[in-house]
Structures are given as C-alpha cells and as structure tokens.
C-alpha cells in the first residue's frame, strides 16, 4: 500500500517518518500560536472513532424497512427524515437516499475527492478514498461490484452516483427475505456499511 512507503528503511518505533514529523511539528506550531485547542482535536477524533459511524445509517435503514411512512419521507426528504433520528451536520447537511430494488441498483462514489455522508456512515474506508474505486466505479461498476463479491443480473440497471456537489448520498438497500417480523434493532444489526454505499447487499445471516 502507498501509505507504507515511508516505512521501508528505518527501525520500528525508533524513528519518526517524514510525515509523522511534519504533522507533529505542525500540531505544536498551531497549538503554540493559539489557533488550535488540543482538547478539541481529541474530541474530533473520539467523535468519529466512537460515536458517529455506520450504525447510525443502519438505524435509518431499519426504520425505513419497518415503517412505510418513514420510508416514504426518507425517499422524499432524506435530510429531514434522517435529522428526525438525530443524525445531522457536517458532510450530511443535504442528504439524498436512493432505494435499491430488483430492477435498479444504486451505488455511490466521489471521483473528484471522497465525499461521503459522515453523519450516517462516519468517515469513509480507505478503498472509498483510493484511486482504484474512484477511477473504475463510474466506468466499470459491474467489475467493481464483483470485487465486493456482488454479482447482479444484466437486467438490473446499475446507477452510479458521483458526489460532485454538497449533496450526500446514502443507499437504502433491499431488505433480505426471511426477515418478516424482525424488530428494527434486529434488522439494524444486519445492515452493513457497504450496503449503504451500494457495494454490498444485506444478507440475513450477517
């Protein structure tokens, strides 16, 4: 992986890489100048490491699967419907939710950077931010999906949404068969992050 390139020729733990050193220097300069509150840095990291992640999106999906009125609202005004569950803010201010069906499979990319709906999915995985997915999802979505072990019939239209603006997209995946009568909590437990990006399908035995 490219991020390992700095680590080739030094002893483990005894030396800082150039990048580590620059970040450390930058941090101390910004703190020294009073531009950054070090405690704020910790809260920012903790928020996304502990609190804001794909479990939020999974709860949105499970509610949509179990509440037809909520689902209709979510597909019509996703920002408001998602905010009603308490998920709002940065990188999710203007949300669109797209429903996957037997006939249409939606998936999301940001070819120009890595735009991603943070309040519902948290911070994006490396593959979403890296060149292979950003390059090929728009031109070869079926081959990209195959790398996630997803194969769809040719009769299923694939719609790839390139997040070039400040609208943020989340997918409402198909509810798996055999989950009738499941509670929203049970359903939320089987909803995966990738299914809400559109690179995965939800399976009953997650």
């Amino acid at each position, binding site marked *: 992986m*490219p*991020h390992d*390139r700095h680590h080739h020729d030094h002893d483990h733990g005894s030396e800082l*890489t150039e*990048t*580590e050193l620059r*970040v*450390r220097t*930058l941090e*101390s*300069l*910004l703190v020294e*100048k*009073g*531009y*950054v509150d070090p*405690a*704020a*840095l*910790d*809260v*920012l*990291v903790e928020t996304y490491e502990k609190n*804001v992640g794909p479990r939020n999106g999974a709860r949105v999906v499970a509610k949509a699967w179990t509440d037809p009125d909520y689902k209709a609202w979510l597909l019509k005004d996703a920002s408001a419907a998602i905010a009603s569950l308490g998920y709002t*803010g940065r990188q*999710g*201010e*203007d949300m*669109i939710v797209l429903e996957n069906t037997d006939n249409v499979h939606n998936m999301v990319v940001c*070819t*120009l*950077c890595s735009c991603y709906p943070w309040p519902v999915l*948290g911070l994006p*995985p*490396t*593959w979403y931010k*890296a*060149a*292979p*997915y*950003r*390059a*090929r999802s*728009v*031109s070869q979505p*079926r081959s990209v999906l195959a*790398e*996630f072990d997803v194969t769809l019939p*040719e009769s*299923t*239209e*694939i*719609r*790839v*949404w390139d997040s*070039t*603006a*400040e609208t943020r997209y989340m997918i409402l995946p198909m509810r798996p068969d055999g989950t009738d009568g499941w509670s929203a909590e049970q359903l939320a437990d089987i909803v995966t992050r*990738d299914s809400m990006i559109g*690179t995965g399908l939800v399976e009953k035995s997650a």
Partner: protein
Amino acid sequence: MNGAHDLGGGHGHGPIAPDPNEPLFHAGWERKAFSLTLAMGFTGQWNIDQARFARESMAPGRYLETTYYEHWLHGLEVLLAERALVSEAEIQAAESIGETKPLPRILNAADVLPALQKGGSAKRDESTAGQPKFQPGAHVTARNINPPTHTRVPRYVRGRTGVIDRVHGVFVFPDTHSKTGDERPQWLYAVRFEGTELWGPDAEVGACVYVDLWDDYLDPA
C-alpha cells in the same frame, strides 16, 4: 483544474482491495491530519472549495503515490502558508518565527459537537437564483471547460449529453467560491449519463452515471 484528483474512468490503479477489518485511522498522524484540518477549517480562514483546491494542487505524480490523509496534510500546509498562518520556514525550524496573526474564531473542545451537528449547508434560498434553467427530462450537454482553477465538472462528462433527473435546489457554485469566495448560488441538478455516452462500446451493460452539475456547467442539448 485537470489534476490527478479527477480520476473517473481511469485504468491501471490496481485492485480495490476492501479490508473488512480496517481501523478508522491507521496511525496517530492520520488522527492529527484529520483533526487539525477540521479544527483549522472551523476558524473560517478558507472555505471547503478552497480546501479541496489546495488538495488537488498536489503534483499529479505525488498525489497518486500518497494517501488520503497525506492529501489533507498537503492541503492544510498550502492553506496555512497562503494565509501566512504557518510558513514552510516555521515547519522546517519547528518553531514560531515572527508575529502570530490573531484569528477571530477558534474551535474549543466544548464547541466541537455542536459545530459538527450544525454543519454548514451549501444550500441557499431559491430566490437568490431565479428560475432553474432546466427541468427533469431536459437534455443537457456538460460544457467542455478546462479551467486551471477549481471546478467540479469531471473530465469524463465534459462535452457529453445527459438528461436532467432531478433539481436539487440552489447551491453555492464551487468554481467562484474557490477562486474568490464568491458564492454565486445557482441551480444544481442530478444529470443522468448513459454508459455508452461516456464510454462508447466499452460501457458495461445496463450501467449509467448520475453527476451533480450546476447551471454554469450545462447547455441545452
């Protein structure tokens, strides 16, 4: 700008390699690159389109060989240097040199959650932009523009024709917002492009792409 960041349609980047057990951050410095960027963004010394442009300005070879948070770090250093907040000389010397410019707004720990939950929508009142130029179903061609400055019309749709799928509303226009801070709010649409229109005979069966494009990127087809 036609930089290495504009990746859509490219080949040769290797497998996608999803890692189901990936940690959110891979190293301490990634946590810092992330949190320093957000904290400094909050000070209001630049806007998000200026931040994106700073990341895109990385030399193409280097952009492709580095990771996401290295792009962020590069962008942060560029923005800090441009605004005379932290110079390269200070980073080299690892100490503050000369006067420190006071900032009107700092992100304190107690403000983090409210600030994140509030966010900052780029949506603007519809009255600021008049009537939308296009309605759903209209055929449009993405303009073939190649500004050396920030733009959000990817190369792979320039000159291509699609259909307006939906009207999102009125949003800040990234090109002018990045260049001068001018929001120039205008209508934003999701435009549907058929795979064959973008990729010719190499398009996959039954695949299409939706791209969010503003009025100033579009002409009637």
